[in-house]
C-alpha cells in the first residue's frame, strides 16, 4: 500500500467557498419561510416597541427536513458514566437540552430559530402585503418647496450671473476658429494675422440661466389614539399596541415626511411620547370623545387638512361611558371629515364577556366613506385588520 500527503494550499485562487451557493439558497428559503409565517411572528410580543437595528430571534417553520422518524414512545439507551442512574432519574430535557447530539433521530421542537433584524422583518412584512402602489404619489400633493437652481446658459443676462469660465471658453473658441480661417486663406485678411490682442467680444459673454422649481411634497400625519382606561386589560392593550406598532413601522418605512402623534386617553386625553405610548399603562374610566377632541385640537393647531394628509387610528375596547356616546359620535364625524382615513379598531378578546354596547354598531351611523371599523379578537386578527385598513385606503384612492 502507498500513502500520499497533499500539502495545504493557501493560495486563495485555488480554493473555493464551495458551500456558498447552498448557503445562499438556504437563506432564501429562510426568508420565504419567515414571509409565510409573518402573521405568527408579528403576533409575538417580543418585537413590539423594539428599536430598528435590534436583532430578533424569529422562530420559523418550513426549512425542516422531514423523514419518517419515531415518536415519543421510542426509548433510548445512555451511558451512566461514573454516576449511578436510578429508575425515575431525569437525564435529559428532550432534544432541546442536547444540542448537537444524535441529531436527526428524534424531532426537536418544531422551530428553527434565525436572527433577523427588525428592519428586515418589517420589509418582509410589507412585501407580504403586496400593496405595490402604496407610494407617496397617493398622498395629496402640496406645493412645498421653491428652489432656484441653475439650468443651462444664456447669451443675455444680468451681470452677477456672468459665467467667467464659459465666457473665456467661448473666446478661445472664437480665436481658434479665426486662426483656422486665416491659415486656410492667408491672403484674405493679412493684417489680422499680426494681431497681438484678441479682446473679449460681446458675443463671448455667457450667463447662468436659472429656473424656479416647485417640488410637490406630501405631508402626512398619523394620529394614533389609544384607550388606556382600566377596562383595557393587558391582553387588549397588547393587541392594540401591536396594531399601532405595525402601523407605526409601516408609516416610518414608507414615507419620508411623516409625523406621528400619539394620544392616550381614559376620561381625558393627552399627547404622549412614542415610548410612553407603547410601554406605559394607565387606568380610569373611558371617555372616547376626549381622545377625539384632543385629536381635533391637534389637527386644528398643527396639521391643517389643507396642508396635511391626516390619518387617524383609534383602538379601544368599545366600552365607552354611556353619556359620552353622542359627543363621541359627533367628534368622530368631524374627524372623519378632516382625515383622509379614520380607522377604528375594536379590541374584543374572545371570551372577554359582554361589555355593554359595542361602538362598532354605534359607529355605523357615521356615513363618511373614509371611516372604517374592524374588530380584533385575537393576536392573529391584528395582521388581517391592519391589511383591511390599508386596502380600504387603497380602494378609496383607486376610485379617486
Amino acid at each position, binding site marked *: *500500500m*502507498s*500513502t*500520499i*500527503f*497533499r*500539502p*495545504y494550499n493557501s493560495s486563495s485562487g485555488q*480554493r473555493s*467557498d*464551495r*458551500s456558498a*451557493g*447552498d*448557503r445562499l*439558497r*438556504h*437563506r*432564501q428559503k429562510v426568508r420565504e419561510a419567515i414571509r409565510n409565517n409573518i402573521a405568527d411572528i408579528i403576533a409575538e410580543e417580543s418585537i413590539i416597541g423594539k428599536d430598528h437595528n435590534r436583532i430578533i430571534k424569529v422562530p420559523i417553520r418550513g*426549512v425542516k*427536513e*422531514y*423523514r*419518517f*422518524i*419515531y*415518536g*415519543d*414512545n*421510542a*426509548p*433510548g*439507551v*445512555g*451511558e*451512566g*458514566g*461514573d*454516576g*449511578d*442512574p*436510578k*429508575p*425515575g*432519574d*431525569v*437525564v*435529559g*430535557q*428532550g432534544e*432541546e437540552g*442536547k*444540542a*448537537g*447530539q*444524535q441529531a436527526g*433521530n*428524534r*424531532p426537536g421542537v*418544531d422551530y428553527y430559530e434565525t436572527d433577523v433584524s427588525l428592519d428586515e422583518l418589517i420589509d418582509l412584512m410589507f412585501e407580504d402585503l403586496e400593496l405595490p402602489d402604496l407610494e407617496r404619489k397617493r398622498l395629496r400633493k402640496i406645493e412645498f418647496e421653491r428652489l432656484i437652481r441653475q439650468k443651462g446658459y444664456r447669451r443675455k443676462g444680468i451681470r452677477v450671473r456672468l459665467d467667467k469660465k464659459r465666457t473665456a471658453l467661448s473666446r478661445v473658441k472664437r480665436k481658434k476658429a479665426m486662426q483656422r480661417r486665416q491659415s486656410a486663406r492667408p491672403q484674405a485678411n493679412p493684417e489680422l494675422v499680426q494681431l497681438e490682442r484678441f479682446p473679449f467680444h460681446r458675443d463671448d459673454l455667457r450667463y447662468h440661466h436659472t429656473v424656479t422649481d416647485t417640488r410637490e411634497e406630501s405631508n402626512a400625519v398619523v394620529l394614533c389614539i389609544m384607550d388606556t382606561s382600566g377596562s383595557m386589560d393587558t391582553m387588549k392593550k397588547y393587541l392594540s399596541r401591536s396594531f399601532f406598532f405595525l402601523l407605526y413601522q409601516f408609516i416610518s418605512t414608507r414615507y419620508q415626511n411623516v409625523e406621528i402623534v400619539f394620544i392616550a386617553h381614559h376620561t381625558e386625553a393627552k399627547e404622549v411620547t412614542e415610548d410612553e405610548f407603547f410601554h406605559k399603562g394607565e387606568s380610569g374610566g373611558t371617555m372616547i370623545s376626549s381622545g377625539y377632541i384632543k385629536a381635533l385640537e391637534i389637527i386644528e393647531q398643527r396639521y391643517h387638512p389643507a396642508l396635511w394628509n391626516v390619518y387617524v387610528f383609534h383602538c379601544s375596547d368599545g366600552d365607552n361611558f354611556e353619556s359620552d356616546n353622542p359627543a363621541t359620535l359627533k367628534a368622530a364625524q368631524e374627524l372623519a371629515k378632516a382625515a383622509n382615513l379614520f380607522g377604528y379598531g375594536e379590541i374584543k378578546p374572545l371570551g372577554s364577556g359582554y361589555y355593554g354596547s359595542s361602538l362598532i354598531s354605534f359607529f355605523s351611523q357615521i356615513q363618511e366613506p373614509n371611516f372604517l371599523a374592524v374588530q380584533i379578537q385575537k393576536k392573529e386578527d391584528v395582521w388581517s385588520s391592519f391589511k383591511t385598513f390599508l386596502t380600504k385606503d387603497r380602494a378609496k384612492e383607486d376610485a379617486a
Partner: protein
Amino acid sequence: MATDYSLDDLENWNERIIQLVQRFGLDPYDQEFEICDHEDMLSYMVYSGMPSHYPHWSYGKSFEKLKTLYDYGISGLPYEMVINSNPSIAYLMRDNSLALQVLTIAHVYGHNDFFKNNFTFRSTRAEFTIANFKSHANRVRHYVEDPSIGLERVESVVDAAHALSLQCRRNLAVRKPTAAEERQRKIEEAKLPDDPFHAVHRRRQVAEPDLQKVPLYPDQDLLLFIRDHNPLLAEWEKDLLTIVHEEAQYFIPQIETKIMNEGWASFWHKRILENLDLPQGLHLEFLVRHTQVLRPAPGSINPYHVGMKIWEDIEKRWQNPSAAEEKEFGPRKKSANEKLFEVREVERDSSFLRRYLTEDLLRELNLFEYKNQGNQQVVSHVADDDNWQHIKDTLIRNVGTGTIPVIKVVDADYRNNRTLLLQHDHDGRDLQLEYAEKTLQYVQQLWGHDVAMETVNDNQRAILELSDRKLAVKKSA
C-alpha cells in the same frame, strides 16, 4: 499560521505507523491525506467528505449550523474525516498539533482497514466512489442549468427524495431479487409440496398466485419503486431519484457500523501509538486527547467508547477466557487476533452488540434505558439482573439503521385507484405523526396519486392518509 511540524515530520511518522499497521495485520486501501484548514473541514463535513457533491440548500443549512456551533465554541471540529473510497481520502486539520496528527493518522488507518474488509461495505464499490459523486454532481447541475427544468423543480424533487432516501434496503450484502426471480419465487411458493402419500390423500387445490399484483413482495426501496412504477415521471426526475438513492445506499454501511467502526479505529490507534515509541511530550498529549475522545458521554452513547470497550473485551476474553467461559464454550479455537479480524469482517453494529456485549460489560458501561416523559427523559431501567437484557435489546434497536422506521410498499393499486399503500413494520415504537404527515406529502408528490400507510398508533392499528394535504388517522381495533 505556523504549525509545529512540517510535512516531512508527518511523512516520517506515517512511515513508522505503516510498519506497525502491517505488523498488526491490518489491511487498508492506499491512503491519501490532505491538509486543510477549518473552513475546508466544515465544508467537507457538510458534503460527507466528498471532493465533489451535488448542490442542495440542506447542505447550506448544515454548514451554517456547524459554523455557528463552531464559532461559539459549542462543538469542536472532528480531528479527522475519512471517506470510504479506494484510495481512501482523509483530511487533516492544519492547525492541529503534531501529536494529534499522529493519532489521527493511526486512527484513519483503522477506519480504512474497516472500510476495506467489513462485509457491509462490499456493496459500495469504493474504487468508483469519487467518480460516482462527481457524476451525480454534474448531472444535478446540468438539470439545474437546463432552462426547461431549472432550480425550483430540481429542488422540489430532491427535497422529496431526501425525505425518503433512507427508506431503502438495509442489508446490501443480500442481493435484491430481480422481477423475474420474484415471479418465479411466487410461483414456487404456490406449488403444492411433494406428498409421498398422494395416493391416499385427497388432492389439494392449488391456490393460484396473483401475479398481477405490484409489488409481488413488499419493497423497501421506496425511491426506486416510485421511479420504476410512476409512468408520469420525466427522465430527469427518475435520474434524480436514482442519484439520491445511490448516495443513501453508499452511506447505509457507515450508519450500520458506527460503533464497530469507531471502536475499531480507536482500538488500533491506541495500540499503534503505544508501540510507536513517542517522545514523552507527544505521548502525554496523546493520552490527553485519547481520553477526551474515549470518555463516556453520560446520558447518551459515545460510539468510540462503547465500541472500543467491546473490542478490548473480545480480545481479553479470547486471550484469557474465564473459567466459566471455558466451561461453557470449551477451549478457544481461534487466537484473539484471528477472532478480532473475523468479527471485523462479518458483523455489523446490531449483531456485534448482540453477540459481544456481555452482561458484565454492559454493567461496567453502566448503561441504562430512558423514556420520554413530557419534555424530559427519565430513566426507566438500569442494568440490574432483571433488566440488563432489556436494556441490551433497546440498545440494539437504537443502533445503525434501527433508528429508521421500516416502511415498505405493499400495494401500488390499493383500492384499485392507484393509491400507494405503505406498511410500517411496527415494533413498539410509533411514528412521529407530524413528520409522517410531511413525509407522506413528499411520497404523494413523487407518486402522483394518493398514498396511505398502515401503522400502529397508541396500540391501535391505524391507516394514515392524506386528505387535502392534512393527515387523517383512521384507527381500527
